[in-house]
């Protein structure tokens, strides 16, 4: 009798609890339901919870290079359907070099159950689950689960603890990618994934990883070297083991970490990248093809080679031409003089590279991790380099000679004869080589940056040596010098010809600029160039100290200042570009929201209304995710409306001064920031930077318990 009563109690308290838990050697597994009672016709969630022994793990839908995903076979009453497992975001495990995708500690595998509208009687869910659990060794395990739910006219939620588990689990599921994605295949057959997430801030995003949804198309990799630019995210991948052609759409989960004002937030997106036949990425790397660990010596050799290749870059041509001309002029002089010249040039190059290495090491020491390429995200940098190319081109064309007045630094250093001049020609070579090779930078430095400081310095110096090597060899070897043509009019013609690669480089930099700022960039850049050309023309009209000359100088100065003033316009650029692009995923969406002003906020609050303020930015992924999962769901919208909340949105994409001042007052460094003013409250409540629907709903219900 007592036993019967106990049983009855158990049945009443929590139906079928006794059968819903399976304890194996390594996993405690439990079938849970998000509802205590189900409503016929209304889908609800159940979940298989796996609590693993420490260090043991189970697998994702694509287990990686070994392992098997958990499988659940359902036995359900007629008409009841179970969806596929909705997987949590996986982790990468490196088991002695074998890469696995899976889970550790405690997870909940969600499954959506849909009971038919005409269902009668209790709903009995029976599941037969199989999973492989591994630490060093692998054990296949299984469990049979049963869960019986009563039916009710309205679904009743489960106990708070279980609901919390489901809430956490749902948050740990990847959301649909807000950005389109595509992929291309290199000649070697390796795919490269491009996620068109425009306007992101590269230096806030790290730990980017793409988990392919299926085995075979893409290899499970220990580490992916994704690059994040204002254009989007680019992830070179490696073809998988399957011999079948790559699919029309490559599905998977993109995981990344965004640094926000309050710390780091991991985000995950499900995406399906369409095969773009027009996109043929350059072979990702020799290293991937050779698949050998680069030794330090190899790295040095490759760096040297890379430096040599730099000599072929169009922007370096003019510098080399200068050197060649100088060499020709020196011909017949003392050999020692020529050698000194070559050494000075080499020293100039090496010192520049050493300075660069020092910067890299210093940044790494202070920041911890260097996200390379950030300078190239700066439109100001692109514009200045475009100007530089243009001016150098004009100079080569013979439009002017740099004089002391224009440069303002006395006689230009690189023109100085002798050793100093050669030294600075070396510096110049590095400076002009740099922007030309921007696309190569990130990858090249990827290696250097992953090394300890002495290796970083050595690799960079080897690269510098490579750059200087041809001229150094020339200046050291009389046999080679004899091959040089004699000085003559050809030198001038060559110089004039070399202006054209410079102009081409300037055009290229302007194109880069438009990628960063949109078409406005062209206007500023070309306008700036006209101003610079105008200034040069003015200055060439005459020297001396007549009032007219001074007037012209003044005008020239104004023109130059205006040209450089364009950089201030550009600072706001990327966001403008993002909103101008017009796509719903770029830029901040104000639908249903008022634009934030401090005045409006204060007034609405003073009028006794609840006010919700959302500070966001186009480049803030966490903001976007919060909007999707918490702020713009039908339930939240309805609740906002019912509560009569004044919804204000502040767009900080452009570093709005008013918003910045609010952030400062609240001691915030950036977005996302969410404020909720309850009616009559003295101060706003600051909500966490990762929002959930429940959080917003409970916030809203706290102010108007009677209305709901």
């Amino acid at each position: 009798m007592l036993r019967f009563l106990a049983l009855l109690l158990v049945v009443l308290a929590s139906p079928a609890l006794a059968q819903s838990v399976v304890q194996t050697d390594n996993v405690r597994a439990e079938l849970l339901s998000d509802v205590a009672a189900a409503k016929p016709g209304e889908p609800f969630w159940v979940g298989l919870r796996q609590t693993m022994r420490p260090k043991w793990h189970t697998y994702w839908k694509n287990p990686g290079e070994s392992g098997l995903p958990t499988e659940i076979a359902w036995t359900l009453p007629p008409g009841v359907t179970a969806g596929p497992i909705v997987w949590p975001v996986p982790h990468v495990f490196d088991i002695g070099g074998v890469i696995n995708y899976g889970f550790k500690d405690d997870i909940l595998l969600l499954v959506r159950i849909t009971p038919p509208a005409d269902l009668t009687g209790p709903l009995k869910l029976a599941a037969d689950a199989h999973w492989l659990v591994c630490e060093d060794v692998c054990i296949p395990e299984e469990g049979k689960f049963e869960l019986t739910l009563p039916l009710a006219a309205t679904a009743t939620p489960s106990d708070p603890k279980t609901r919390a588990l489901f809430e956490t689990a749902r948050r740990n599921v990847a959301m649909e990618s807000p950005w389109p994605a595509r992929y291309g295949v290199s000649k070697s057959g390796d795919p490269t994934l491009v996620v068109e997430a425009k306007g992101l801030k590269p230096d806030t995003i790290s730990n980017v990883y793409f988990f392919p949804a299926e085995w075979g198309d893409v290899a499970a990799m220990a580490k992916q070297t994704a690059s994040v630019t204002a254009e989007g995210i680019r992830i070179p991948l490696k073809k998988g083991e399957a011999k079948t052609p790559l699919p029309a759409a490559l599905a998977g989960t993109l995981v990344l970490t965004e640094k926000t004002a309050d710390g780091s937030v991991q985000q995950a997106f499900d995406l399906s990248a369409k095969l773009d036949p027009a996109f043929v990425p350059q072979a990702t790397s020799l290293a991937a093809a050779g698949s050998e660990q680069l030794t330090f010596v190899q790295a040095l050799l490759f760096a040297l080679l890379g430096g040599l290749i730099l000599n072929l870059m169009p922007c370096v041509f003019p510098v080399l031409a200068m050197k060649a001309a100088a060499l020709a002029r020196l011909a017949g002089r003392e050999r020692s003089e020529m050698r000194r010249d070559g050494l000075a040039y080499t020293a100039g190059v090496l010192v520049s590279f050493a300075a660069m290495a020092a910067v890299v090491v210093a940044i790494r020491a202070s920041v911890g991790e260097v996200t390379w390429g950030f300078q190239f995200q700066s439109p100001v940098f692109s514009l200045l380099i475009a100007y530089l190319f243009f001016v150098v081109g004009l100079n080569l064309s013979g439009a002017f000679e740099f004089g002391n007045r224009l440069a303002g630094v006395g006689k230009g250093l690189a023109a100085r004869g002798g050793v100093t001049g050669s030294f600075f020609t070396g510096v110049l070579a590095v400076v002009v080589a740099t922007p030309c090779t921007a696309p190569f930078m990130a990858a090249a430095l990827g290696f250097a940056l992953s090394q300890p400081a002495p290796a970083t310095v050595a690799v960079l110096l080897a690269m510098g040596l490579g750059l200087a090597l041809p001229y150094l060899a020339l200046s050291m070897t009389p046999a080679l010098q004899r091959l040089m043509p004699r000085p003559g009019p050809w030198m001038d013609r060559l110089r004039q010809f070399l202006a054209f690669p410079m102009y081409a480089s300037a055009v290229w930099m302007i194109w880069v600029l438009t990628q960063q700022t949109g078409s406005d960039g062209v206007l500023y850049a070309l306008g700036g160039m006209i101003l610079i050309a105008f200034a040069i023309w003015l200055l060439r009209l005459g020297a001396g100290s007549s009032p007219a000359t001074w007037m012209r100088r003044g005008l020239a100065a104004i023109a130059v200042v205006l040209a450089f003033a364009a950089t201030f316009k550009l600072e706001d650029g990327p966001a403008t570009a993002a909103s101008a692009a017009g796509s719903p995923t770029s830029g901040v969406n104000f639908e249903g929201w008022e634009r934030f002003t401090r005045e409006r906020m204060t007034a609405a609050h003073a009028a006794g209304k609840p006010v919700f303020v959302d500070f966001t930015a186009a480049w803030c992924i966490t903001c976007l995710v919060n909007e999707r999962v918490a702020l713009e769901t039908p339930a939240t919208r309805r609740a906002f409306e019912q509560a009569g909340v004044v919804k204000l949105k502040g767009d900080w994409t452009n570093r709005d001064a008013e918003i910045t001042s609010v952030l400062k007052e609240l001691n915030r460094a950036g977005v996302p920031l969410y404020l909720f003013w309850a009616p009559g409250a003295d101060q706003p409540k600051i909500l966490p930077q990762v929002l959930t629907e429940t959080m917003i709903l409970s916030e809203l219900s706290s102010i108007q318990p009677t209305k709901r």
Partner: protein
Amino acid sequence: MSNFNVPRRSLMLGGAALALAPAAAFASTSPDVGKPAPLFTAVDSSGKSWSLADLKGKVVVLETTNHDCPYVRKHYNSTNMQTHQREAAAKGVVWLTTASNAAGEQGAVTPAQANDLTQNRNAAPAAVLIDPQSKIARAYGATVTPHMYIIDAKGTLVYKGGIDSIPSSNVADIPKAKQYVRVALDEVLAGKPVTEPSTQAYGCTMKYPRTST
């Protein structure tokens, strides 16, 4: 020649990008089917030395093993693996079982243990290679036990992957599964290209020497 006044924003340097990308992960060293199979030399459980180079002219099957792995046990307890081995031997195929889990890990065996296992399980490989440093497994990029490879008479790797198509530890699944290795072996012996040359291997994760990564 004239001189330039240049902004000193030379933070970047030029790029041996091609050369300097980070090295690929280890497991990607798995050789491609259609390419020469990696050569190896190893000593078997009776002390005899085997070299793949010496086996030219014969079709060779490689089977990574770990006798304590439930997936290996599935195929031995059901005598599926032994049947495969006998069929292969009857067709003149050299079947090499390789105990490649690192010394001290699950599945690592001494020659005597390997012989006992062969006897107790009534197995019929041409040899059981003792590979405590996982050299063979590493050369072939094996990730699980059993991971199966077929090398044709010219020394070309023509198949790599699972033994069959149903990744489970359940013996009852064997008759239902597509027999990848048997089908591929028949195709190779008939001089035909292998229809499915690379499949998903399943089993227990290979245990490589811990110092190796």
